[in-house]
C-alpha cells in the first residue's frame, strides 16, 4: 500500500476529484493549505496598504492506495492538475505498513 499526498492548485481540485472518482477512487482526505515552493508570492496594494501574499492557497489531497492503483491515480492527477504553469504542485508517495478499519478491525488492503 502507498500513501499519496498531492499538493494542487485549488482551481484544479474539482476536476481532479471528478477524474479520481471516474478512476474508481472514492475516499480521500482534503485539506485547505497554504505554502510556497518555487512559485513565490507577490505583493498587492489595496487602498494604500500592502498585502504580501507569500503563502499561496493550495489544496492537499491524501489517500492510501493499493499498489495496483498507484500508477493510475498518479497519472490521473498529473493529467488533470497540470496547467503547465509554475505552482501546479507536487505528488509525494510513501509506503504504508498497515491500514485498519476501526468499525470492524479489517486490516490491509481490505480496510481501504
Amino acid at each position, binding site marked *: 500500500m502507498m500513501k499519496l499526498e498531492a499538493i494542487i492548485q485549488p482551481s484544479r481540485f474539482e476536476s481532479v476529484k471528478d477524474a479520481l472518482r471516474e478512476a474508481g477512487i472514492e475516499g480521500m482526505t482534503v485539506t485547505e493549505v497554504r505554502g510556497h515552493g518555487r512559485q513565490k508570492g507577490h505583493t498587492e496594494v*489595496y487602498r*494604500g496598504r500592502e498585502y504580501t501574499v507569500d503563502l499561496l492557497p493550495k489544496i492537499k489531497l491524501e489517500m492510501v492506495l493499493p499498489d495496483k492503483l498507484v500508477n493510475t491515480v498518479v497519472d490521473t492527477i498529473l493529467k488533470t492538475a497540470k496547467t503547465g504553469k509554475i505552482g501546479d504542485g507536487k505528488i509525494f508517495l510513501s509506503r504504508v505498513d498497515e491500514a485498519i478499519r476501526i468499525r470492524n478491525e479489517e486490516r490491509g488492503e481490505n480496510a481501504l
Partner: protein
Amino acid sequence: MTTAARPGLRLLFGQPVNKMQGSVTPQSVLGPQADDERQRIRREFEAGVSARQTVLALCALADQKTQQVFEDALQTHTLSSSGLCLVALGGYGRRLLFPYSDLDILFLFGTEKAEQTFRPLISDFSRTLWDMGFRVSSAGRTIEECKRIEEDNIEFHLALLDRRFLAGDTELFNRLDTRVLPTSEKAARPFLLAQLHKLTKDRLNRYGNTIFHLEPNVKDAPGGLRDYQAAAWLRQISENKQSLNITAAEEDLASGAVDFLSAIRCFLHYANGRNDNTLTYELQAAAAERSLGVSDAETRNAAEWMRLYFRHARTLNRLLLRYLEQKALVPQTFRQRIFNVARGPKTEPTNGRPFGVRDGMFEVLNQPALSDRSQIFSMLTEAARAGIPLSRQAERCIAYIMQHPELTVSNAEVSWSGLREMLGADYPGFALRPMQRLGLLTEILPEFSRIDSLVVRDFYHRYTVDEHSLRTIEHLQELADPPDERAEHFQPLWRTVDRRDLLIFALLLHDVGKGMPVENHVAGSLEALASAAERLKLSEEEVAEVHFLIERHLDMSATMQRRDIFDPATVSGFAATVGNQERLQRLCLLTYADIHAVNPEALTPWKADMLWQLFVATSNHFSRTLDRDRVHAPDETSLLEQVRIVLEGGTTEEIERFLEGLPRRYLAVHSANDIAQHIAMYRKLKTEPVQIELRPSGRAFSLTLMTADRPSLFATIAGVLAGWGMNIIKADAFANAAGTVVDTFHFADLHRTLELNPTEIDRFRRSLVDVVNGRAPLQPLLQGRDKASRERPPKVAIETKFGFDDNSSEHSTLLEIVATDRPGLLYDIGSTLARLWCNIEVALIDTEGQKVIDVFYLTEQGKKLSPEKQSALFEALRTKLG
C-alpha cells in the same frame, strides 16, 4: 444530568465485591421481567400510546425495580434502611424517563458512618440494576454535605430541585426535603440563578442561538426539551414567580410542545437503540411518515412535518428567553444597592414616542399606540439604526396587536423608502430577526414565507433556509466590530458599501427559490424578486442591482474556488462579469456572508483569504484599467435604445456623440435615466457653458458638473466645495472624446449650510458657476475656511503615501494618494497637479473614515509623465500634504 459521585463512592464501585448472596428474587428472573415490560411499553408507544404515558410507564417500571432490588439488597446484607435513602433526581425525579435515559439516583446518608456501612450494599444494588439494563448515574452525599452548595457542580444542585423519594429512610428524606434544602437553596438563590443563566446561555451559544438546525438535537438544542426544563428551574428558583404573567393559553401551548418533542425523543431512542437525541434527515422522514406527535389525519412530507417541529421548538425557546431576559440575580454589595436605588431604572427619554430604551432594550410604553403600524416600524428602524434589540415585552406587545384583528390598525402599508431605511442601517438584523419571529417579515415580504422553517437536505448547511438567510445579514452587521481575524479585511467594505439596503434585500431573497417548485433555485429567487419589487415599487435601477446580486450570488465563490485567482485573465473575466467597483463590494460582502452562514466552520481563514485576494485583484483591475476601456458608442446598441426611450426628442447620433470616448466606468455607475439627464445638460452647454445638477443624497449631496475641459478645472471645483465647507467623500472625473467633462462629486455639508438655509443653494450654484467660468475669484472663498480647517487636528493620523504606476495604463501615469482627510485636501492636490501642468484624464476619489484614497490618471501633453516630472510632482505634493 451529570452527577459527580464523591471520590470515596467512586472507589467503592471500583472495588471487586463478592457476588450478591441470597437475593430474594434472582437476577435471572428480574432481568427478563424488566426486558419484557420494556418491550411491552415500546409496543404500546409504537401502537399510538402517547409519549407522556410512555415516559410515565418507564418511570414506574424503574421505580418498581429499583425498590425491589433495594429491598432485596437490604435483606441480603441484613441491614435496615435507617440512615440511607434513595432519591430520584433530574428527569427521573420529574417522572420523565425516556427509553434510554440515565437513572439519576442520590444515595443520601444520615451520617458518615452510615456511608461506610452501606457501601457493599450500594455496590451490589448498582450492579444489579446495570445488569437489568438500567443506566444508573449515581451520587452519594451525607445530609450534612447537602447543606453546602458545591460551586463547581451546579448541575447537581439543579438536579436536586427535582428530588423525589424513591426508597429507604423516609424520615431522612423529609429532613432533606423540608428543612435542609429549602434553607440552603434560599441562601444560594442568587448564585443558583446566575449559574443557571450562565449554563443556559452557554448551551444556547453552543448551538448558535437558533432553533433552526437542519438536524436538531431535540433535547439540548435551542427549542429542545432542555429549554422547557431550564424555564421551569428559573421559575422555581426565582423569588418573583408571578412576574412573567404566563397565561393559561401559553401554558397549554408549551405543554403541547413538550408532548410533541417527548414523542420525538422516545422515537429517537427506540430507533437508535441508545440515548441519541439527534433528529437526522432519515429519522425526520420516518417520523413524518408515521405522523409522529400529530393527531390530525393530514399526510405530511418530511419538510412539512419539520415545520411543525420548529413551531413547537419556537414555543419552548420563546418561553425560556422570557425567563432569561429577567435579570439574573447576583449578590450586590451594600454600596451597589444604595447606588442602584439612587439611580433608578435606566430609561432613556422617549421624545413622545410610544417606545423607549430601558436597560439597553427597546420596550413599549404605550401599547394601544402600536395599532398605528408606523410606530412599530419606527421602533424597528430605530433598533436597526442603533443596534439595540427589542425586549420580549416589546415583541409581546406587537404580537398582541397582530393577533387581534378586531383592533383597528392604521398605516399598515410599508413603503420601500421606509423599508430601505431599515435595511440600509448599520444593524438591520436587529429589526429583521424580531420581524421574522412576529410574522411581520412575511407580511411585508410574503415571498420569504416560501422558506419559513424550510429544511433542505444538504451536507454542508446546518440551518434551515430562512435561518441561513437571516444569519447572512447578522454576519455582516457583526463586521462593525469584527469578531475574529477572518472578518478584519471585510470591515471597511461593510462600513463604506454603497446601497447597503439593496445588498440586504438581495440577501433576504437570494435563497427564496429553494422553497419554490423550480429546478434552479436562483431562477425561483429572481421570480420572487420580480413580485416583491413590483409590490414595493423599487425603481428599475434598484431591481437591476438586486437582480445582479441574486443571479450572481454564487459566482464569486465559484471563481475563487474553481479558477486561478492569480491569473490576470481570471481577474479580468470576473471584473467584466461584475462591471464596477460598487457592485464588486456588494457581491464580495454577500459572498462573505453567504459562506459564513452555511455553518460556523464553513468560512475558514483560507477561504476568507481567497475571497479577499479575489476582491483586491478585481478592485485593482477596475482602478487600473479605467482609461483602457473606453466607450465606442455605436457598439452599445441596447443602451442607446434604452437612453433614447427615456430621453425626450433624442437622436441616436446625439447620444453617441455624448458617450463616445467616456471610460466604461461611466456606463457602469450611471443608469439609462442618469445618462438621459446628462444628455439634457449636454444640450444646454451651447447656451450656458457650465451645467450643474445638485441633489440631496441621503445625508450628503451629489453634484454633477458638465463643461468643456479646461486647465485646473478639477482643482477649481474642489476649491469651491472646500470654500463652502463641503467635505468631498467621493468623486469621479470623466471626459468624452470631444473634451466634455462630466465630474461627479458626493460631498458632506459639514456645517449644514445648505440643509438649514435653502436659499443658500442658489447662491452656492451661482458661486460655483462663476468661479468655474472665471467670473469670480476662488481665493477669497478659501481664505476663511483654510484657517479653520488647519486648526482642527485629525482624530486618526494616516501616513501620507504617493505611488506612481506607469504599467497599468497605455496612455497615462497612475498616481495613487493615500492621506488623512481634511477639508480642502482635494483642492490642494488638484491645484498642485495643475501647477505642474499635469492633465487629469480620469480621477477616482474615495474616502474611508478619515482616510482618503485618490487615483488620478495623469498625462502631460498627451503622454505619460516623465520620471523627472514624477519626481517633481512627488516633491511638490509632499511639501503640500506633509
